[in-house]
């Protein structure tokens, strides 16, 4: 195996599992440390740098960071990263003095953004401070896009949404509400824009064309139904409701139904629960509100009595897993009663307003968009968010926005969109004395903090009462200490090592081994603790000078406690803080590689 090249920022970045998993590469350990120090405003601003909407995402993010969190591999429960983000937002002071501002001198370039969702707002956030004139065209009368119309207010209060959209719009974005773009061709021809960004989302809910679909006005498409609830067009619902689909939209629909007066709400999934698309915590939250979640049922037809919708017929399956593959065998058919059926089986894109003869190539009704540059086949037209490759989530939309902004900036400045600023890293020692480090290195055995909810009977009376109460200061204090500070890396200097074994003996997780070098698969088997998690890297030193063996570290379950560095007599180990430089539009490459 070759010695590890730690000058490539990807190595240490990958060790920070949460940051690596976050599409926007938010510096999570650092923002958690800032919270630990009570520096909520700074923590909020650090979040905002990467993910732009800390208050919104602190409530609604899909949290790819949490399943990745190393703590989950150590004691089974990841750090409550997402809700700590909300803590930073909840306890922050006025951040307006620290927000980016537009320069008085504009650069003369005009950019149009279509849709005022998270992707477009991120593009605006990155380009306005660089002097661009940014115009957003939004079909509704308020900003936020899907964040506003699809996420119920009991999960995301309007105030939070307004505030964080406002931070961007108030920089001086020229936003045109209630102005849907009817023709991209016209916008390109007559708009006078140097670049156009399409961030219009995936606004069409999928239909379920089974017999009886069009014989009732009590059958709704999930996202449309949520939108009509949001705008107050739907204010009540009949007692018995079936929700078809088990994604996060289905969860929002069933919980909304409960608040609109439904007494029996059932969510129907075609597969067993472990295959459901909804996040586990969303399923739990729905069940807490006495929603029934049923599995192994496939819709056959709508059932009518005296011309009135009375239920739905399903095929019932028995699921067996064989060789990791799901096999479903039909048992029988059943009918479940329903006054209302909501179809929440997914979303798709719709671009009726984009002409197909303007040099913008489509394939299978989707625009052809470059994965790295976000540019379509027509130079100057960019896509991002759900509009680019179909439904994802908010945090992906934000990162798409950042990347598209880099391309737009390049395009407007006459630089190739493929000529992108590179990632870099900054490494600095955290040593503050013989046994002191600039981070809290002791391991806390505390259990993951549990989010408190508003009392059940109380919460179901209102569509806007936020269910989650947020973490208290006491909960926060305990939760921040659960973070393992994975960005504080174990830096190793081969030539200083005298092979005394002190680090190996003291390591609580048996991460370290000094042994003969070999090929990686074989080397993994003869470490002090076998390195079975292939997703986690091995660090390999150069040949040690006294015996020619190598120091090997399995990164998998390192606690970053710093004991190896404390017990090292020669400073061969040091606890080194890693900062990723993940450039946004207009940012230069860092000084280190």
């Amino acid at each position: 195996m070759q010695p590890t090249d730690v000058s490539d920022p990807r190595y240490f970045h990958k060790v920070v599992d949460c940051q690596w998993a976050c599409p926007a590469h938010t510096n999570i350990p650092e923002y958690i440390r800032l919270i630990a120090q009570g520096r909520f405003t700074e923590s909020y601003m650090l979040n905002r740098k990467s993910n732009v909407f800390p208050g919104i995402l602190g409530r609604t993010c899909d949290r790819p960071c949490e399943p990745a969190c190393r703590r989950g591999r150590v004691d089974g429960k990841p750090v409550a990263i997402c809700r700590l983000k909300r803590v930073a937002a909840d306890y922050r002071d006025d951040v307006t003095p620290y927000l980016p501002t537009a320069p008085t001198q504009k650069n003369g370039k005009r950019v149009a953004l279509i849709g005022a969702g998270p992707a477009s707002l991120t593009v605006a956030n990155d380009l306005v401070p660089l002097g661009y004139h940014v115009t957003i065209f939004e079909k509704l009368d308020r900003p936020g896009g899907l964040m506003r119309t699809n996420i119920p207010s009991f999960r995301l209060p309007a105030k939070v949404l307004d505030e964080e959209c406002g931070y961007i719009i108030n920089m001086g974005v020229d936003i045109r509400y209630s102005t849907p773009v009817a023709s991209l061709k016209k916008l390109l021809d007559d708009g006078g824009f140097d670049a156009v960004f399409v961030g219009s989302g995936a606004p069409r809910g999928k239909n379920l064309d089974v017999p009886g679909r069009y014989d009732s006005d009590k059958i709704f498409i999930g996202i449309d139904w949520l939108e009509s609830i949001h705008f107050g067009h739907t204010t009540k619902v009949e007692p018995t409701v079936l929700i078809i689909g088990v994604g996060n939209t289905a969860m929002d629909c069933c919980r909304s139904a409960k608040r609109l007066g439904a007494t029996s709400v059932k969510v129907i999934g075609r597969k067993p629960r472990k295959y459901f698309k909804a996040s586990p915590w969303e399923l739990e939250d729905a069940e807490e509100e006495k929603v029934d979640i049923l599995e192994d049922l496939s819709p056959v037809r709508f059932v009518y009595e005296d011309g009135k919708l009375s239920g739905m017929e399903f095929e019932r399956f028995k699921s067996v897993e064989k060789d990791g593959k799901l096999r479903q065998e039909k048992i029988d058919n059943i009918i479940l009663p329903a006054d209302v059926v909501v179809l929440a089986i997914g979303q798709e894109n719709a671009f009726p307003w984009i002409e197909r003869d303007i040099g913008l190539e489509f394939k299978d009704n989707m625009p052809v968009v470059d994965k790295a540059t976000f540019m379509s086949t027509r130079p100057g037209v960019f896509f991002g968010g759900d509009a680019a490759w179909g439904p994802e989530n908010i945090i992906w939309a934000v990162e798409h926005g950042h990347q598209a902004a880099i391309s737009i900036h390049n395009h407007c400045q006459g630089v190739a969109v493929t000529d992108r600023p590179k990632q870099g890293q900054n490494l600095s020692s955290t040593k503050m004395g013989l046994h002191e480090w600039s981070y809290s290195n002791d391991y806390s055995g505390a259990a993951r903090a549990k989010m408190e909810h508003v009392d059940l009977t109380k919460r179901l009376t209102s569509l806007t009462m936020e269910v989650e109460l947020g973490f208290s200061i006491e909960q926060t204090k305990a939760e921040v200490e659960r973070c393992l500070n994975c960005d504080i890396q174990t830096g190793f200097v081969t030539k200083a090592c005298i092979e005394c074994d002190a680090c190996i003996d003291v390591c609580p997780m048996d991460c370290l081994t000094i042994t003969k070098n070999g090929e990686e698969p074989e080397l993994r088997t003869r470490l002090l603790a076998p390195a079975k998690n292939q997703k986690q890297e091995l660090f390999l030193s150069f040949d040690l000078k006294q015996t020619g063996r190598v120091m090997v570290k399995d990164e998998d379950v390192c606690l970053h406690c710093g004991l190896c560095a404390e017990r090292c007599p020669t400073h061969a180990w040091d606890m080194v803080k890693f900062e990723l430089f993940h450039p946004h539009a207009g940012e230069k490459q860092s000084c280190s590689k």
Partner: protein
Amino acid sequence: MTYIAKPKVHHPSLQKNAIGLTRRDYEGAMSTLCAGCGHDSVTGALIHAFWELDLEPHRVAKLSGIGCSSKTPTYFLKNAHGFNSVHGRMPSIATGANAANQDLTYIGISGDGDSLSIGLGQLCHIIRRNVNMLYVLENNGVYGLTKGQFSASADRGSLAKRGEANPFEAIDGAMLALTLGATFVARSFSGDKEQLVPILKAGLKHKGFAFVDVISPCVTFNDHDGSTKSYAHTREHLHEVDDVDFVPLRKEISLPADAGSTPEVRLHDGSVIRFRRIDGNYDPTDKDRAYSYLRERAKSGEVVTGLLYVSPDSLDLHDNNKTVKKPLTEVPYEELVPGAATLAKLQKRYR
């Protein structure tokens, strides 16, 4: 030393031994020795050895004297018995404890100062008496606790960190043990656990006095260029005579293909020490040869390591004294103190 305690969490794959304990259950308090001290590595090797032998920590007694080495019993087997004696007097305490209760596993930890200077006389007598214990001499050639003066094991001509040369001859603990009739003599190096752990296991299972001289560098005062007990010097001059494999009784003993060149020594409990010869002619059961071999190699500046000598038919203190075969605490009071009449009868025999 280190401020935080070693976190209690462990690797998910950490194994349990036959009595349901993990290696972590054999640890002690955090070390307060200098970072990188060889003694901590010996502690690490002992933890491995005790765990691999499935020994119950509460059936072990740890004894030591004074010095850096003698602090280390605190750092392993926190559930064992322990006694920190007066400087150099650990052998007396160990002899007494063993005399009273032969059922415990005894381990003595000492250093070159504790064993070869102030406690040399004590060491000689515990060797003669063949007290059943593992005696580890953590040998670094300096008095670390008093800032690095030469100890009795420092080689003639080796340099102190400040530069002055040692004018006196060294006492070689292993050779001393051989001349005094030790039944198990080994030398190893703290920086080589692959060798040290099997030797410690064999020593723990040997019936009689098992003397293990471990070169254990002092990183603070004796790990520099002029030292003959540094990590680098020891590694450069190591001369391994045999590779020891300890096979406990409960494991099936299968002979390797090259059985002829792999001599074995069967211990009293049926377990086996198997040697892989590295130095072709070396025979660890030939005491005279062992002694001359050590002298030869020492002259050329080599540090001979491995199991140097073992006597398969060792008789320990209790065998020689024909004592009762159980701990005194288990002997009924009436037998232990048979009363005035029995005493009078006994005395009458000598009149």
